C-alpha cells in the first residue's frame, strides 16, 4: 500500500471530489497561483481552472460569506482558511449563517459546505498563530466537526465532509501535513462522520483524543508499554457528532480514562468528554477522569516556555499512571 503524506492525502480527497461533482469548488487565500499556503491544493488550479480554484483577497469574513451564499443556491463550496486563527474573523458567517440557515429557514436551506484549514500550534509561532479551535466550533449546533490525525483519516474524512449536506468543519493538524501513513490507491477511501476508531488496543487505561494528539497518545502508549501498561487509544476523529458508544465501550474495558486535547482546559472539548464518561460510565470507573491539555496561557514564543505550555507524551504518561494509582 502506498505511503503518502497527510498533505497529499488531503490533496487527493479534494481532487477526487472535484472530479466527481462539478458543484464542488475550492476558495481561499493563496489556494490557486501560489498552490496553497501549505501546498495542500498543489496542482489544482492547473487541473480545474480559476472558476473552481479561487484565490481571494485577504477577506475571511467576506469569502466565508461567499461560500454561504453559493451553498444556499446549490453549489458545494470548500472554504479554506490559511489557518483557523484567521477564521476568527469569519466566525459570524460560520456560526450565524452556515450553522443556523437550515433551522432559521424551517429546513428550506441546507448548507452543503466545508470550512477547512490547519488548526493548533506549530512551532514557535507565539500567541496569535498557535490555537486549537475545536472547543469553540463543536459547541455550535448545526456544525459537524472533524479532526483527522492520520493521512488515511484526513482523506476519508475530508471526502465525507464534502459529500455531507451539512456544514462541516475540517480541522487539519498544522504539524501533521508532513506526517506519513498508508492510504490505499485503487479503492475509495471514505471515513464516515461520527465514527471513532480504536487506534491501539489496551486493557489498562483509555486515552480519548483526536487530531494531532493521536500522535502524542501513541508516543505515550509506547512509553507505557515499556512498563507493561497497556493503553488503549480511542481516536474520536469526529467531535460533533461524538461517538459516545466507542468511548463507553473502551472505558467499560479499562475502567480508566485520560482525555488528551490540544486546546485550553476551561470549557474545553475534553470537559465535554469527561462529563459524558462520569455520567454514563460511572459504575465502570476506578479513578477520576483526567485531562491533559495546553496550559491556560497564550502560547509563549520562547522554546522552553512553549514546550512547557503544550500537552505532550510525558504529561500523558503521568496522567495515565495517576489514574492507575502508580504515581501521585
Amino acid at each position, binding site marked *: 500500500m502506498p505511503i503518502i503524506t497527510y498533505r497529499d492525502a488531503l490533496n487527493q480527497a479534494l481532487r477526487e471530489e472535484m472530479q466527481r*461533482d462539478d458543484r464542488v*469548488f475550492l476558495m481561499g487565500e493563496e489556494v490557486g497561483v501560489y498552490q496553497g499556503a501549505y501546498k495542500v491544493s498543489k496542482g489544482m488550479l492547473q487541473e480545474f481552472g480559476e*472558476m473552481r480554484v479561487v484565490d*481571494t*483577497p485577504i*477577506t475571511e*469574513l*467576506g*469569502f*466565508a*460569506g*461567499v*461560500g*454561504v*451564499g*453559493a*451553498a*444556499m*443556491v*446549490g*453549489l*458545494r*463550496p470548500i472554504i479554506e482558511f490559511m489557518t483557523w486563527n484567521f477564521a476568527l474573523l469569519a466566525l*459570524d*458567517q460560520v456560526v*450565524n*449563517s452556515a450553522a443556523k*440557515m*437550515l*433551522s*432559521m*429557514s*424551517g*429546513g*428550506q*436551506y*441546507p448548507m*452543503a459546505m466545508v470550512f477547512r484549514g490547519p488548526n493548533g500550534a506549530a512551532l514557535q509561532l507565539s500567541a496569535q498563530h498557535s490555537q486549537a479551535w475545536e472547543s469553540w466550533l463543536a459547541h455550535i*449546533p*448545526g456544525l*459537524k466537526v472533524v479532526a483527522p490525525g492520520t493521512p488515511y483519516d484526513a482523506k476519508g474524512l475530508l471526502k*465525507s465532509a464534502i*459529500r*455531507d*449536506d*451539512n456544514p462541516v468543519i475540517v480541522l487539519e493538524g498544522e504539524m501533521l501535513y508532513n506526517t506519513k501513513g498508508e492510504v490505499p490507491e485503487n479503492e475509495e477511501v471514505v471515513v464516515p462522520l461520527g465514527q471513532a476508531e480504536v487506534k491501539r488496543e489496551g486493557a489498562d487505561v483509555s486515552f480519548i483524543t483526536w487530531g494531532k494528539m493521536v500522535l502524542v497518545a501513541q508516543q505515550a502508549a509506547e512509553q507505557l508499554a515499556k512498563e507493561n501498561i497497556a493503553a488503549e487509544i480511542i481516536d474520536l476523529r469526529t467531535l460533533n457528532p461524538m461517538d459516545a458508544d466507542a468511548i463507553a465501550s473502551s472505558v467499560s474495558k479499562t475502567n480508566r480514562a485520560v482525555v488528551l486535547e490540544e486546546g485550553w482546559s476551561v470549557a474545553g472539548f475534553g470537559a465535554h468528554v469527561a462529563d459524558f464518561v462520569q455520567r454514563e460510565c460511572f459504575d465502570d470507573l476506578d479513578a477520576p477522569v483526567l485531562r491533559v491539555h495546553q496550559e491556560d496561557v497564550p502560547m509563549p514564543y520562547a522554546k522552553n516556555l512553549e514546550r512547557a505550555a503544550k500537552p505532550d507524551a510525558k504529561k500523558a504518561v503521568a496522567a495515565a499512571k495517576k489514574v492507575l494509582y502508580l504515581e501521585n
Partner: protein
Amino acid sequence: MPQKKSSEQNGASGSIDAAARGDAALRRDLLREMLLIRRFEERCAEAYAIGKIGGFCHLYIGQEGVGVGAISSLREDDYVIASYREHGQALARGISPRAVMAELFGRVDGCSKGKGGSMHLFDRNVNFLGGHGIVGGHLPIATGVGFAIKYRGGDQVCVCFFGEAAVNNGAFHEALNMAALWKLPVIYLIENNRYGMGTALERASAINDIAERACSYDMPSEVVDGQDVLAVRAATMRALQRARSESIPTLLEVRTYRFMGHSMSDAVSGTYRSKEELEEHMKRDPIVVLRMTMEQEDGWTDADTSKLDEEVKAVVQDAWDFADASPEPPLEALYEDVFVDTTS
C-alpha cells in the same frame, strides 16, 4: 475621484424609463402592493401590542416604495436577500401574507415553520433567501449568490437590501470589493432611512453621500428617491440590465425614511429625531406620491383608493385569522432541521 459610472451612459435609459413607469394597470398593482404592506405592518404593530408577535419586530412603514419598486422589476428566477426589516420585501416577492403572518405569530404554517420569526423570513419557492439579523452579515452572502450565478453561467441577478448603517461595517467592504473584482451580478441596495437605530447617518459615516463609497470599488452607483416607487423601479431596471448583460454589480443608494420607531420598542420620535422632522418626511409618503401620479395620469379617484384599501385590509385580516388558527409547532420540531441526514 474616479468618475461615477452612472446609468446616463447607458444608451437604453429612455426605454427603461418608459418600462419603469408602465401603464395604469402596473401602477395600480404597485399601489396595491404598497398599500398591502402598509396595512399588514399596521396590523403587526397591533399584534405586537397584544403579545401575538414577540421578539424584535422592525416595521417597513414609510419605506414601501423601495421594496415594491425594486422587486417589481425582477424575474421569477432572480434572488432576493434582505436584513431583518424584511416583511415588505417578503410580501412584495410573493410570500403569502398568511405564511408571513403565521411566521410572525410563531406558528407551524409560517414560511420558516415558526423557527425564524420576524427577522428570518425565507421562501425557497420565490427565491427569497431570507431575512438576516446581523447588520451587514448578508452582504457577503449576496456576493456568494452572485458568484454561483456566474459559476453556472446564468443571467439571474441577486438583489440585496440593507440599511445605510451597514455601510460602516467590514462586511460591506469585503462583499462589494469581491463583487466588483470578480464582476458578479449583484445589486446592493441601500435603504437609506437616515438612522441606524438612534444614530443618524452623519454621526456614523465619514461620508454623507454614501453612494460615493462605490468609487472605492469602481462600481456603478446611483442615488434614488425611495419615496417614488417608479424611480426605484427605473434605477433597479438600469442596474439589472448592467448585471444581466455585462455581469456588473451596482450600488444603489435609495433615500427613504422610516415612519415608525426602529423596532416596536422604540418611540416614533423624541430622542434622536424630532416630531417636526418626522412630520416633514411623512409628507412624502410613497403611497401618496404614487397616488397623485395616478390621479393625474390614470384618472384614479379617492373612491378607487378606498376600494383597493378595503381589498387589502381583507387580505390582511385573512392572514391574521389564518395565523391565529395555525397551531404552534409540535414539540418534536425542536430537534428538526438542525442537520439534514443526506449526502450527495
